[in-house]
């Protein structure tokens, strides 16, 4: 195993830095990939569980495009469905019938939801969800979780972030995850003023262990929301269809009013969805919300094909099982070298951290080393597995991890 080199990636980046803010911006920025020199910056192609960068290096991909890839890259059924629709004309002057088909399919699939609204990105639908909740309740305040991520619209960002006004986040009240009492006291402090509670099904912050809901947490939150007329929004953008095909609220046993989906919904084709209970349908209809490409039919066809395939093979179960084996294997490998690798979150999108160094520098080095030998691991974010990850990937990954721990140990000496 020799470390990969990245000449073409770097040359492209040099050009990018002159004409694009950040060179590569947002969640694809190489800044949190530590050290960046261990990571590819530009991808050339992908197939199954792997992608190849512009320098010809191949990676077993444990980021899955940060979630959208769920059945494997270049998936034949999904790509064929999208191509067929695209050929007919994906962006015409009226929506295609597939839009209705997809909405009906989702309403059948996702538990407790009666309608679906489509957009492009996760942020589109979390923002729409908040607008719908405000429209429905006539209230301003929204309770969210500290460290919870719902996109990039000003309301989702914290005070002090560039371009964000105090007024933008003035009505967003942040509390710690799993702290029901904090929610209850906010409800008491702001009677009749809280429009919505928004959170992901479990807490998956960056740079920190992920946390499942404490027993009874969601049920208590739901009960209080129902009592006080607060709209319960689940941001299922990251977990959606990686825990349960009927929605992650089924996995955790509660009933939200609105659910946001994006990432895994169409295996990489651009589409997101807000789903809601019937009681909110007319309020949703009153909020004017749209976008140039939100009616593109090819991604809708891709979503139909993806969801049908995930359902057919029971995708969430496959990913949970593979993730379980992966995490167990990695933790054992770590242990054999004297390191403690802590796993948190769902096995289908686990967050791993070497606990021996609280600064995370050791973990960053290990993830960088693994990536430079072909197992694409990030140190700051939860990983993702797909249904395309297989036994060969597992064996190769564990070999790479083993070698990386060995190198880590040598470096320490």
């Amino acid at each position, binding site marked *: 195993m020799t470390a990969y080199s990245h000449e073409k990636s*770097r040359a492209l980046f040099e050009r990018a830095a002159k004409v694009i803010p*950040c060179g*590569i911006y947002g969640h694809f920025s*190489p*800044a949190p990939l530590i050290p960046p020199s261990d990571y590819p910056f530009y991808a050339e192609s992908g197939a199954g569980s792997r992608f190849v960068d512009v320098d010809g290096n191949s990676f077993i991909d444990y980021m899955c495009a940060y979630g959208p890839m769920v059945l494997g890259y270049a998936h034949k059924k999904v790509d064929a469905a999208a191509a067929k629709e695209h050929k007919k004309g994906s962006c015409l002057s009226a929506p295609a019938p597939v839009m209705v088909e997809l909405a009906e399919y989702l309403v059948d699939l996702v538990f407790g939801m009666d309608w679906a609204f489509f957009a492009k990105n996760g942020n589109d639908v979390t923002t729409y969800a908040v607008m719908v909740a405000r429209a429905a309740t006539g209230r301003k305040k929204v309770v969210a979780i500290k460290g919870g991520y719902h996109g990039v619209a000003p309301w989702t960002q*914290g*005070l*002090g972030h560039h371009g964000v006004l105090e007024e933008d986040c003035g009505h967003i009240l942040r509390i710690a995850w799993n702290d029901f009492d904090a929610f209850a006291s906010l409800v008491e402090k702001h009677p009749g003023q809280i429009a919505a509670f928004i959170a992901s099904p479990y807490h998956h912050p*960056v740079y920190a262990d992920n946390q499942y809901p404490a027993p009874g947490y969601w049920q208590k939150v739901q009960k209080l929301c129902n009592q006080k007329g607060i709209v319960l929004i689940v941001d299922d953008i990251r977990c959606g269809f990686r825990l349960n095909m009927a929605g992650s609220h089924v996995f955790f046993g509660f009933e939200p009013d609105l659910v946001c989906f994006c990432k895994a919904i169409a295996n990489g084709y651009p589409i997101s969805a807000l789903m809601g209970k019937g009681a909110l349908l007319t309020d949703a209809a009153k909020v004017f919300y749209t976008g140039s490409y939100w009616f593109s039919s090819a991604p809708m066809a891709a979503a139909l094909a993806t969801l049908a395939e995930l359902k057919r093979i029971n995708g969430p179960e496959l990913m949970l099982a593979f993730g379980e084996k992966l995490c167990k294997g990695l933790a054992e490998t770590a242990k054999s070298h004297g390191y403690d690798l802590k796993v948190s979150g769902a096995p289908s999108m686990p967050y791993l951290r070497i606990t021996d160094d609280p*600064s995370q520098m050791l973990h960053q080095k290990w993830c960088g080393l693994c990536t430079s030998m072909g197992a694409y691991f990030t140190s700051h974010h939860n990983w993702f597995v797909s249904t395309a990850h297989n036994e060969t990937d597992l064996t190769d990954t564990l070999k790479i991890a083993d070698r990386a721990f060995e190198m880590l140990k040598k470096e320490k000496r």
Partner: protein
Amino acid sequence: MGHDRVLASLNLFAVLQNLEELVKLDPQAAALCADWNVSMSFSVLNGPAAWIEFGNGSCTVKKGWDLKADIALKFVSCRHLNLMFESKRPPIIARGITRLPFLLSKFPQLTKRLEYYLKPDEKLLETDELFRRMNTILTLNTAAFAAVELASYDPVCQHIASAIPQGTVLLKILPDGPAVTLFIKKDGWQAQKGDIENPSAKMLLKDMDIAGAFLNQKLDIFCAIASGDVAISGTVPMLDNLGLILDRIPLYLA
């Protein structure tokens, strides 16, 4: 906290402390105060206070009161102090009136020299390497000490600081300094000039020029990290949040 209160803290604890380095590193400043043997205090009524001591060719700046300072300068308000820093209003000389000539002519020469580096002429910054180096060193120190004050007094920074994990952050210019260390604790932050072993997070700036660009808000930091001009590691949320705080310095010390 109002703008003047924050700015007063920055002037006293982030700007003034640069006199220490200035006297050490700038021959002209060193020559000016080579034979000074005097201490001065700056205090705002019901507000912040600092004192400076010159002796044996060196300068020490400290937070707080020195009741025995040779010269005691008082200010009725933070605004009064800030206006003095802009040379728009004189201080009240509560003690040391006999040192008036020192106050009126000698000391201002030194602060002028500080201003020369801290409010740099763009042309000089571009063309003069030594000048750029001094500007960078002083701006690095200013940034670290300013972060401490902003985290305490600027409302937006207080909010940002409330989410920063505790620990130590090292900002260092490669290959071997200068460096500053920030100690981030729930009950207050501290800045210290110099390196530290095993910080919780570190930001290593490739050289003086990269550091200068970073500190003068002229660097696309994301690009710089990706290209290796700036290396970060450790508890990155500390750096992310600290970055947001440093970005607010120009709102006060433009």
